[in-house]
């Protein structure tokens, strides 16, 4: 088997260049999808038969919640690859994920509170789903704090990678909390095995939002990764070429 591709994946100059080329290919479709989904979700989709116009918070809440969990998955996977194969670029990917993940976890909590108030009558309850999501925010903040607290880059990479990997136990708890326990949070409408329980004109904007947010994250991650690689490759001669 030819392993060249794997070694190129670990090569900072290669990744730096590829990331720069790829960014607009993620950013533009993301922008178009999110704009179209905004129109679809706010204007075209019919009001919900129970929640009226209020259900439209779904179109920002669900994609943020999806990003918060998906980014954690990317971060922990990259951290594991970095730990196992000692791949520096993988650690750079993990480090680039945390800030964005923390932001969207906070957004999912805030939009959830703004949805909970009119529907449940309260901004916050110590419900399993809500609590697990709050723990996710603390995991991100802990990861960032740990990295910031260790001066030696190699040690920061290793220690934060272990934290990221241990924190993965929280992900299935978030996912299944609404099924395992008596949660006030509604069960998934889309991310489940059966058919989504929504009419098409309600579902289409949501799917577009989910895809748009995912592509948006990819674009942001690539820019952050380029910054992280430059910061790490302090004396590499390729930087001279790349910055020309």
């Amino acid at each position, binding site marked *: 088997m030819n392993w060249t591709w794997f070694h190129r994946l670990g090569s900072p100059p290669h990744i730096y260049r590829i990331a720069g080329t790829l960014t607009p290919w993620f950013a533009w479709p993301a922008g178009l999808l*999110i704009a179209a989904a905004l129109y679809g979700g*706010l*204007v075209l989709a019919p*009001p919900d038969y129970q929640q*009226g*116009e*209020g259900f*439209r*918070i779904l179109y*920002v*809440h669900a*994609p*943020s919640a999806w990003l918060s969990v998906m980014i954690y998955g990317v971060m922990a996977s990259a951290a594991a690859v970095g730990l196992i194969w000692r791949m520096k670029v993988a650690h750079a990917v993990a480090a680039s994920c945390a*800030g*964005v993940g923390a*932001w*969207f976890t*906070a*957004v999912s909590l*805030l*939009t959830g509170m*703004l*949805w909970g*108030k*009119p529907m449940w009558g309260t901004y916050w309850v110590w419900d399993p789903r809500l609590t697990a999501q709050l723990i996710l925010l603390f995991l991100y903040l802990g990861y960032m704090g740990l990295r910031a607290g260790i001066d030696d880059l190699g040690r920061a990479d290793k220690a934060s990678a272990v934290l990221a990997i241990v924190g993965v136990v929280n992900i299935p708890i978030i996912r299944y909390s609404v099924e395992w326990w008596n949660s006030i949070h509604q069960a998934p409408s889309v991310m489940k095995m059966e058919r989504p329980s929504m009419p098409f004109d309600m579902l289409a904007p949501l799917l577009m939002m989910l895809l748009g947010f995912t592509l*948006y994250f990819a674009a*942001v991650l690539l*820019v*952050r990764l*380029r*910054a*992280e690689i*430059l*910061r790490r490759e*302090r*004396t590499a001669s390729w*930087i*001279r070429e790349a*910055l020309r």
Partner: protein
Amino acid sequence: MIEFLSMDGYAVFLWPAYAVTLLAIVVNIVLARRAHEEAKEAARRRLALEDEGSSI
């Protein structure tokens, strides 16, 4: 228009939720770009220092 903006009484919850999300989207673009620009600037400064050092 007024009817659209009022969202059948949910406006006070719905629009802040959209605003917060849009804010996060914009802020993360700005932060990522700034981080990249700063990293490039720092790398340029390092390279300039190196050149100075080697010419002495």
